[in-house]
């Protein structure tokens, strides 16, 4: 009987077109994904993993299968619904099997059928990927060898268990509750768990929890594959071990538990009863006498029928309230709303967390969540309930009655759309309410209620309205509820993942518009207008869809396409025709206006044409890369900032000096669209002009002889012309202008403009990119890492701005005056600086303090320029400044400038940067950090990152502004690793060993997680290239800090100090890591030579583990710990391939009491394989930990605490 039930369902499903339709969808997605990634379309570049990972690498396919297994959930809903719900409706099975069937046969027969069908549909993914990779036109070198395991493993670890979980949840829920809507709730539940696990996965402490919590196992596999490299991904899928394995077991058990629940709770009699009347009470019986009671004839009352506009408006009003009542009483609508509120609260908790430290729930953060992850809930509600509302009358068999009513059909449709729009608005109100409550409960009182309304109802809401129109149109046009659901999901995937990549122009992406953003400093900036122009354009399009929906509206019993078109034609009245024409005209008109702005006033370039320009640039001008050019020695800037107009006008003056030993007759100047004129102090003529690539060559009448200089003048004007596809393009912002010297003309070929990805370069037949010059390269040694066109320069700037703003630039403020109702600031650097500066202008509050260098007695002005609302962490900034300045001045060299300003800029960019005496700092990283728990001691696991970032940037006042590295491999180790290390020393000084350890741990994790994205090859630290930020920040910082501990006694700081003294302000040749290593060599004992070699010249990993640990106690209360420790060391090559290495290395061992007191911390000598050790302690040990302070790189980022057991006598 089980077999019959099973086969019955299978046969029935395979007879329907739906299953093939779903199969084809998955197939098509998988197929095209492989095609796009495999280079089928020349103009589209897509990377699923890093450049070094093959498109069909097991590690990549594993991720793709994983993603399909949770996006495919929507197809599973339809399949399970068909088996469970439709059967209830038509009672098919009960007719066939009522008498003989047993409960388990019934339930498991059908469940297995559902599971089987879902798995059958999911074969499309593997087949689609396989067929996709086999297409002859793809680039063969993007693909590795075919491996069966690359397909089988993901099916075993991901598809089969995930489909089991989802099928069993859907099956049991709809079996017990007999409503499809419950499945949508399950989807949201699963997605919430997924989203939460993705969120908490970032923090070390919650990674294991995240791994277990994720029902789809994505987080778990990421946790397990931490530290994996490109080579690992090319060789194998994530191995099913530790938390990943536990996750799979856990969720498979949950699947079975759900099934068991279904089995026990299901009452067999369900199938015999009519299902959809379950809620009904016993039928009312009429008594005979009542039925003849109508004999008392009363006159039919008088009434009038009214089809006037007012009456129709009344109908509409009534229908809206009728529908709204129905929707808001719908238990699933209520439940989804509750889930979304819960999700809001959970994700509010995690907003903007950096190094474990929270961010204040400033209003824009809460709004970001509402418009970000929360919007998924709203889209789901719209998709789901648009279908429910449109199909309700037909599903309830009420449609023949309602369709025979004289109500105009547009009213029926409009009432449903309006209802959904109102319901979304209501939900948003509720969410805003909870957002505000959350802010208040978090003790944050600066709530900007008006901002909630402008951002959500003024900006976001229209997107939901457009989505509602689309959902209705799709439902009405497709005329099949489930196909329409699937179509909408496909649309969502397309819109969020592919539309921007493939279509690019918002003119052709429904609902496409430039992003808008909000900053506490800049407000909405210039983003409102372009957003709304595009949105209005799409609103007209939506208008057309509304009219078409109305024409297609199904208020009859005809489902054949021919008949529907016939009806549509009959329905076209003069009025509809007119409204279509008007709507179309407006659509075209706004479209033309947009086109005029984006493509005529401004340039719209598809990414492919930009790519081709880069190729052209390299082909034409690479040959000039090493041509002798003069260097800039003096810079004078005279700039006017007009915040209200977005205008920036600059006149600049350079002195160019020939510091080579040959005379120079032609000057290669790289300009940009804003540079209006360039001329020189001596006679010159333009001999080469390329306006597309902005490359210009001027020939000097009189060649520039060695050591001679020539003056160069330029004019720069930037003012937005209309708007572009990405919004208004303006260097200046209304409040919070921040730009740097990269906008100004530079000298000589710029290799930074070349195409970076080797995959893309290959497409254009370019040779592999040289990512860094060698340390021996003389050209590299004679140019610094920040600018090829200058060594140290003098700098002077006069900047004017709006009267209520302050303009800032590096240098001392020489003079400040008011003129023509504008403020002028004159800055001048007291000493030469590197050729990199920035200019800022905004309304600021200024908090000032004085710091006196205890050694020299020199006074330094400290200041924080900040937004009036962002005064939370000023103390942290200033404190960090004082501690840092003192520490660096004492250990490295005196601070060279007269002031140190920390200047806030809007969150359009999220970083902090160091300029001489001035540190621009993004509002989103530190100014709104919530340090309350950290300061009052209740949170001991997070890092005061405003303090740390400040310390880091201040360290740059030495590393980059005094010691400048050559532009060769390893330069960023000198500039950033050392800076990171210095800042960690300051952090440790202020917050102690534990805080530094937490920080090091987080950085280790970031490094390990980043390895697989390496696009070229991982380099040893001393040869790091300037794109490898995870090497030079994270790994470099961690390892230098470790080296500091290994060398001990501040020896490393001494090396740093020597480095500063020897190389400060040194140019041509600039310092390289070889110089550093030479100095280090002198301070390194022979016993640690292997160690410095390992960390600077090799990529080294350990895999050390405690195998056994026990202790005994003697009568003197001394404890003796015996431990067996296994050592393994690997050297990894650039692709991440590990090779076992010999070791006899120092590894730190920490032993801790029950109360986590450190009773032992020493380095032991650890050789390959198992080693046995004895430690003598005077306190009772409980745990032993290898390398507790992260002094060596171990892929196992959790330092496992191993129990020390008492030896039984």
């Amino acid at each position, binding site marked *: 009987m089980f077999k019959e039930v099973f086969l019955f369902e299978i046969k029935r499903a395979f007879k329907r077109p739906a299953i093939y339709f779903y199969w084809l969808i998955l197939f098509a997605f998988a197929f095209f994904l492989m095609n796009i990634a495999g280079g089928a379309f020349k103009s589209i570049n897509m990377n699923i993993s890093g450049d070094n990972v093959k498109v069909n690498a097991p590690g990549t396919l594993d991720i793709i299968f994983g993603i399909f297994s949770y996006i495919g959930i929507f197809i599973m809903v339809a399949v399970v619904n068909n088996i469970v719900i439709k059967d209830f409706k038509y009672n098919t099975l009960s007719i066939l099997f009522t008498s003989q069937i047993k409960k388990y046969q019934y339930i498991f027969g059908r469940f297995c059928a559902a599971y089987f069908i879902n798995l059958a549909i999911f074969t499309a993914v593997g087949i689609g990927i396989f067929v996709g990779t086999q297409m002859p036109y793809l680039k063969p070198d993007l693909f590795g060898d075919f491996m069966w395991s690359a397909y089988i493993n993901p099916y075993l670890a991901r598809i089969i268990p995930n489909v089991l979980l989802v099928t069993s949840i859907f099956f049991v829920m709809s079996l017990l509750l007999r409503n499809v809507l419950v499945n949508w709730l399950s989807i949201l539940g699963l997605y919430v768990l997924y989203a939460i696990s993705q969120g908490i996965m970032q923090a070390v402490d919650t990674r294991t929890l995240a791994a277990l919590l994720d029902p789809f196992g994505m987080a778990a596999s990421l946790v397990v594959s931490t530290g994996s490299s490109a080579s690992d991904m090319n060789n194998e899928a994530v191995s099913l071990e530790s938390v990943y394995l536990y996750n799979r077991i856990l969720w498979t058990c949950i699947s079975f538990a759900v099934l068991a629940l279904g089995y026990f709770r299901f009452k067999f009699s369900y199938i015999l009863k009519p299902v959809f*009347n379950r*809620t*009904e*009470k*016993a*039928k*009312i*019986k*009429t008594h*005979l006498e*009542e*039925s*003849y*009671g*109508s004999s008392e004839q*009363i006159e*039919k*009352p*008088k*009434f*009038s*029928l*009214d*089809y006037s506009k*007012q*009456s129709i408006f*009344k*109908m509409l009003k*009534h*229908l809206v309230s*009728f529908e709204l009542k*129905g929707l808001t*009483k719908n238990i699933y609508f209520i439940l989804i709303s509750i889930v979304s509120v819960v999700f809001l609260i959970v994700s509010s908790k995690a907003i903007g967390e950096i190094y474990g430290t929270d961010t204040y729930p400033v209003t824009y953060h809460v709004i970001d969540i509402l418009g970000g992850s929360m919007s998924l809930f709203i889209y789901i509600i719209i998709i789901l309930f648009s279908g429910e509302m449109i199909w*309700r009358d037909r599903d*309830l*068999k*009420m449609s*023949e*009655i*309602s*369709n*025979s*009513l*004289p*109500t*105009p059909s547009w009213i029926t449709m409009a009432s449903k759309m309006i209802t959904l729009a109102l319901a979304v608005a209501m939900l948003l109100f509720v969410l805003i309410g909870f957002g505000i409550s959350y802010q208040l409960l978090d003790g944050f009182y600066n709530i900007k209620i008006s901002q909630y309304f402008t951002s959500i109802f003024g900006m976001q809401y229209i997107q939901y309205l457009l989505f509602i129109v689309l959902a209705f149109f799709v439902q009405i046009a497709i005329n099949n509820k489930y196909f329409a659901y699937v179509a909408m999901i496909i649309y969502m995937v397309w819109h969020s993942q592919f539309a921007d990549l493939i279509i690019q122009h918002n003119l052709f992406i429904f609902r496409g518009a430039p992003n808008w953003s909000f900053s506490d400093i800049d407000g909405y900036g210039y983003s409102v207008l372009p957003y709304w122009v595009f949105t209005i354009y799409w609103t007209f399009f939506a208008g057309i869809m509304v009219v078409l929906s109305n024409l297609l509206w199904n*208020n*009859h*019993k*005809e489902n*054949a396409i021919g*008949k529907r078109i*016939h*009806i549509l034609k*009959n329905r076209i009245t003069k009025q509809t025709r007119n409204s279509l024409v008007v709507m179309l005209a407006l659509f075209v008109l706004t479209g033309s206006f947009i086109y005029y702005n984006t493509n005529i006033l401004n340039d719209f370039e598809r990414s492919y044409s930009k790519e081709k320009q880069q190729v052209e640039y390299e082909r034409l001008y690479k040959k000039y890369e090493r041509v002798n050019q003069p260097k800039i020695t003096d810079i004078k800037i005279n700039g006017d900032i007009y915040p209200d107009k977005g205008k920036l006008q600059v006149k600049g003056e350079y002195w160019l000096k020939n510091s080579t030993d040959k005379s120079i007759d032609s000057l290669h100047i790289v300009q940009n669209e804003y540079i209006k004129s360039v001329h020189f102090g001596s006679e010159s003529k333009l001999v080469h002009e390329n306006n597309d690539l902005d490359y210009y060559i001027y020939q000097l009448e009189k060649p520039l002889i060695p050591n001679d200089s020539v003056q160069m003048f330029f004019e720069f004007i930037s003012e937005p012309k209309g708007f572009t596809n990405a919004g208004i393009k303006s260097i200046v912002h209304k409040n919070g202008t921040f730009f740097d010297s990269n906008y100004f003309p530079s000298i000589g070929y710029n290799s930074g403009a070349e195409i970076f990805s080797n995959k893309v370069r290959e497409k254009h037949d370019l040779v592999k990119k040289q990512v860094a010059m060698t340390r021996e390269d003389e050209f590299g040694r004679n140019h610094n890492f920040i600018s090829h066109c200058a060594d140290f320069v003098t700098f002077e700037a006069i900047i004017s701005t709006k009267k209520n703003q302050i303009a800032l630039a590096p240098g001392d403020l020489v003079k400040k005056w008011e003129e023509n109702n504008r403020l002028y600031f004159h800055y001048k650097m007291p000493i030469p600086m590197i050729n990199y500066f920035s200019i800022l202008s905004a309304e600021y509050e200024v908090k000032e303090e004085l710091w006196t260098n205890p050694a020299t007695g020199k006074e330094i002005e400290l200041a924080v320029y900040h937004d009036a609302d962002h005064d939370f962490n000023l103390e942290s900034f200033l404190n960090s400044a004082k501690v840092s300045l003192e520490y660096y001045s004492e250990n490295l060299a005196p601070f060279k400038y007269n002031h140190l300003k920390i200047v806030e800029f809007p969150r359009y960019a999220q970083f902090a940067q160091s300029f001489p005496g001035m540190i621009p700092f993004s509002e989103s990283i530190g100014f709104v950090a919530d340090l309350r728990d950290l300061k009052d001691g209740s949170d001991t696991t997070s890092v005061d990152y405003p303090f740390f970032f400040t310390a880091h940037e201040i360290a740059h006042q030495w590393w980059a502004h005094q010691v400048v590295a050559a532009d060769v491999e390893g330069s960023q180790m000198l500039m950033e690793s050392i800076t990171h290390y210095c800042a960690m020393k300051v952090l440790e000084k202020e917050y102690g060993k534990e805080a530094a350890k937490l920080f090091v741990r987080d950085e280790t994790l970031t490094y390990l997680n980043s390895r697989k994205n390496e696009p070229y090859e991982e380099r040893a630290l001393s040869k790091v290239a300037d794109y490898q930020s995870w090497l030079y920040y994270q790994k470099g910082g961690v390892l230098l800090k470790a080296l500091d501990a290994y060398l001990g006694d501040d020896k490393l700081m001494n090396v740093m100090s020597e480095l500063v003294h020897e190389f400060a302000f040194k140019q041509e040749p600039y310092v390289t890591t070889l110089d550093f290593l030479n100095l280090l060599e002198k301070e390194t004992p022979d016993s640690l030579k292997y160690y410095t070699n390992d960390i600077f010249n090799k990529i080294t990993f350990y895999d050390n583990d405690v195998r056994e640990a026990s202790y005994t106690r003697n009568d003197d209360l001394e404890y003796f710990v015996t431990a067996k420790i296994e050592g393994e060391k690997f050297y990894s090559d650039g692709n991440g391939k590990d090779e076992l290495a010999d070791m006899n290395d120092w590894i730190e061992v920490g032993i801790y009491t029950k109360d986590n007191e450190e009773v032992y911390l020493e380095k032991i000598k650890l050789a390959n394989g198992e080693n046995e050790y004895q430690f003598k302690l005077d306190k009772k040990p409980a745990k032993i930990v290898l390398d507790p302070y992260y002094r060596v790189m171990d892929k196992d980022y959790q330092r496992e605490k191993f129990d020390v057991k008492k030896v039984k006598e």
Partner: protein
Amino acid sequence: MKLEIKNLSKTYENGIKALNNLNLTINSGMFGLLGPNGAGKSTLMRTIATLQEADQGEITFNGINVLTEKEKLKEVLGYLPQEFGIYPKISAVELLNHIAILKGLSNKKERKELVQFLLNQVNLHNFRNKYVSSFSGGMKQRFGIAMALLGDPKLIIVDEPTAGLDPAERVRFNNLLSEISEDKVVILSTHIVDDVSDLCSDMAIINSGEVILNGKPVNVMSELGGKIWEKIIDKNDFSKYQEDFHIVYSHLNGGKPLIHIFSEENPGNGFNQIEPKLDDVYFMAINSVSN
């Protein structure tokens, strides 16, 4: 008040010809539409009710072109489909009020009075605050009539309303129908012959999408006057009688077949002459076409 159907044809995608060049004129009063299952009754009803399209032909009602002026027809239409469901958790009075608004009764007071009146008329006043979904079959049908009667319908279409009702409910329902047909066109589609003879002043029989008989029940019955004979026979003799006589129809009477035959003259052989009933007309018509 007149409904005219001319040359109406409709073929479904699966090839079934539901209406085949059908012509019919229906005047005010209760009109019975008889026909076996699948004869095209429901298709005809739905087409008149604007819910389906015809391939060709035309339908006019009081000057309204039904096929093109759908909205206008709906203003004077009351339609009770063969099978219908009701929104869950809504009371009779609420639902009637809802339908009334949609039918254009925009005055609240008038609407309330009419709803009360109709609830009285269909005898559901005592249940006005109960959920309609909890009504029994007969109550639901009566409620359906109340929905159809809301407003001022001139054309009322009732599609197989008594199918599945117990005899008492059927009587109740028919009583109700008989009250409403004044100066309206009421089309009652059914396969229960007695309903038509009880209620209708005019009737038509359709089969395979065509009208095979059209007239007043009294007239069509009297045409057979003196030509219908009945006899109780033995089961085994049935085929013999079938050869010898034109059997109109047969049904069991006390376990034995009672046959009605058509004969211009006295067939003798123990047959008794009977007054023709509509059943005889119906079966004569159906069989003559299929033969």
